[in-house]
């Protein structure tokens, strides 16, 4: 990443006073953050700091958990995504998600990628769909590896390939934002490197938000980094500043490896 501050694109997400409760636990405490388009933003912090929870607020994945309650104001392109007229299904089509553990459906590679276009009716015809699948797989850098076996099962791929398949699947839905919840934590170093490169390049087109355990990874791929601790957003800065001139004591402790 560059040493100087990158030019700020417009804020895709504006979050103000976000709180999350699980039954009796206060998981996210009054956080404010702006997330910018066409860039990669990292959430870092020790385990259980709420970074994944916060990520799941951005496409309302927390709705599927019965005991979870989200309050505050999260705006996507100036529209409150928790508003009563917002359909979470539509929202999730715009804000795609990739998970920690690769979770390809037990279907063929083609069907995995075509899943989003099919349910959202994005393809006019079969040729259209074929084109979408191909371009998504190309974007995810998987096309050359799987083009000869599109009809074999997605679960038969290696871990890194599976994760790239999941990314391709997310891209195929044509989202505006890509949320990634520790996408490399289940992968070996070589696969990690490939996926990291992919994420960096995706940041040129999409608004990418990535939760990561690894500070090196955040340093390598993201323009901006947010540090969470015990449900609190401690510091949010350009990646360069977070790692080189952190202001908060907790951030200093974490990035210098004293805890976490």
């Amino acid at each position: 990443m560059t040493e100087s501050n990158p030019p700020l694109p417009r804020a895709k997400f504006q979050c103000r006073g976000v709180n999350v409760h699980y039954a009796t636990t206060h998981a996210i405490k009054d956080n404010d953050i702006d997330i910018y388009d066409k860039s990669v933003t990292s959430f870092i912090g020790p385990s259980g700091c709420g970074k994944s929870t916060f990520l799941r607020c951005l496409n309302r994945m927390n709705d599927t958990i019965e005991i979870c309650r989200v309050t505050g104001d999260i705006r996507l392109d100036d529209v409150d995504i928790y508003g009563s007229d917002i359909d979470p299904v539509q929202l999730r089509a715009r804000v795609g998600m990739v998970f920690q553990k690769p979770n390809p459906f037990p279907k063929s590679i083609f069907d995995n990628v075509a899943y989003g276009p099919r349910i959202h009716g994005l393809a006019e015809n079969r040729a259209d769909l074929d084109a979408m699948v191909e371009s998504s797989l190309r974007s995810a850098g998987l096309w050359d590896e799987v083009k000869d076996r599109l009809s074999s099962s997605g679960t038969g791929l290696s871990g890194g390939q599976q994760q790239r398949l999941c990314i391709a699947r997310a891209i195929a839905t044509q989202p505006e934002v890509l949320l990634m919840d520790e996408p490399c934590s289940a992968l070996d170093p070589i696969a990690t490197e490939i996926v990291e490169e992919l994420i960096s390049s995706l940041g040129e087109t999409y608004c990418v938000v990535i939760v990561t355990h690894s500070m090196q990874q955040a340093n390598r791929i993201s323009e901006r980094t947010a540090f969470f601790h015990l449900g609190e957003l401690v510091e949010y800065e350009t990646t360069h500043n977070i790692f080189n001139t952190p202001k908060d004591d907790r951030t200093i402790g974490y990035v210098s490896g004293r805890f976490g």
Partner: protein
Amino acid sequence: MLSWVALIVVLMIAGSFFASQQRARGVAQGDLAALHSRPAYHGAYTALWVAIAGFGVLVLGLLLSNIAIRSALFAAIPDSLGPLSQIERDLIVSDGVAIASGEVASRSDAAREAVGARYGTLMMVRNVGLALLTLGAAAFAYMRSSAQISLPFRARNRTEKIVQVLLMVSAAIAILTTIGIVASLLGQTLAFFSDIPITKFLFGTLWSPLSGVHSGSMDPDKVGAIPLFAGTLLITFIAMLVAVPVGLFAAIFLSDFASQRARSIIKPMLEILAGIPTVVYGFFAAITVAPFLRDTGAAVGLTISSESALAAGIVMGIMIIPFISSLSDDVINAVPQSLRDGSYGLGATKAETIRKVILPAALPGIVSAVLLGVSRAIGETMIVVMAAGQGANLTANPFEAVTTVTVQIVALITGDTEAATAAGPAFTLGFTLFCVTLIFNVIALRLVRKYQESYD
């Protein structure tokens, strides 16, 4: 008399435990640490041997002597009666036994009196002999094992060895049961097919095995089981038509739509449905559902028999609903949350997630649940005995009465016909039933095992 013997053996077991424990204490002379095993193990070792010897001899003796006495009684039938059929010989023996034990015999004559007298003496000898043998064996076991008590005797290890053997024997009973089932069914089945060609049984369309039976020989043209198979199939089909959609939709609702509160009401309700004995379902079918269907049919101009396949099938379907729903609920819940998340994360609705991701993933498990349900429906007895017909009627019309394999087994075994005559077709039907359900079960269990492995 023998129950007293059993009681004495129990007392001997308890006595030998305490005696040996005491004896071990005596050997140790106050220094218990000098013993390799604690006194209780010496006691347990002796008691176990006494129990094995006493009860082993008693049970084995009972079984063997019963068999021996039976053959002796057949031998006691006077030759002067001339050649007799097996059925007549059975009858003479059972009457003789009845006379000897003061019960009512169907007929009383010299031959039966003779058999009765013979039975009396044999039982007397058996009881006294077995009592002496049992007590002797127990006493011998006590003396042998308590003589071993000494400081270095490894009573604990020996006891544990015995316990382990007993545990293994217990586990082997499952296999013995299967062997028993196969052997008892197969024996009669083979005997049945020695008289009747198997093709006549499997492909004949006329079932009336006991009509015109003279001394055990059947008309091969009247043992065609096709009407029974067809009837069983028809009722099973109706049952699955009810149970599969209702059970599956209920499972889907429970796993992905119902709130915690709704689940806590619906699950126990389904469990109650599962816990109701089949005889109760049979009563419900016969006294409520069948008349209701008949009257409803009459109101719209349909002739529905009061023993229609429809009534039995519907009630059987109700019985199987909880079976399908709980097994499907299990497999649907076993689909990892990550797959659901993946689908929701792409903006799929719940319905799309269920239809396109969860159901295909859970399919092997659901198929296995359905197969187990089918196997259950095929083998279900009480509902069809009480609500389906007796007449072997070859039809696909659900409004008519049909009969099933299980109904015919019950009719043959509990009917008035001589047991030896009815056993042939009954056990052959039983064996067919066992084989068919076994195939379904094996396939279903394979599927579910594979399914579990794929998500472990």
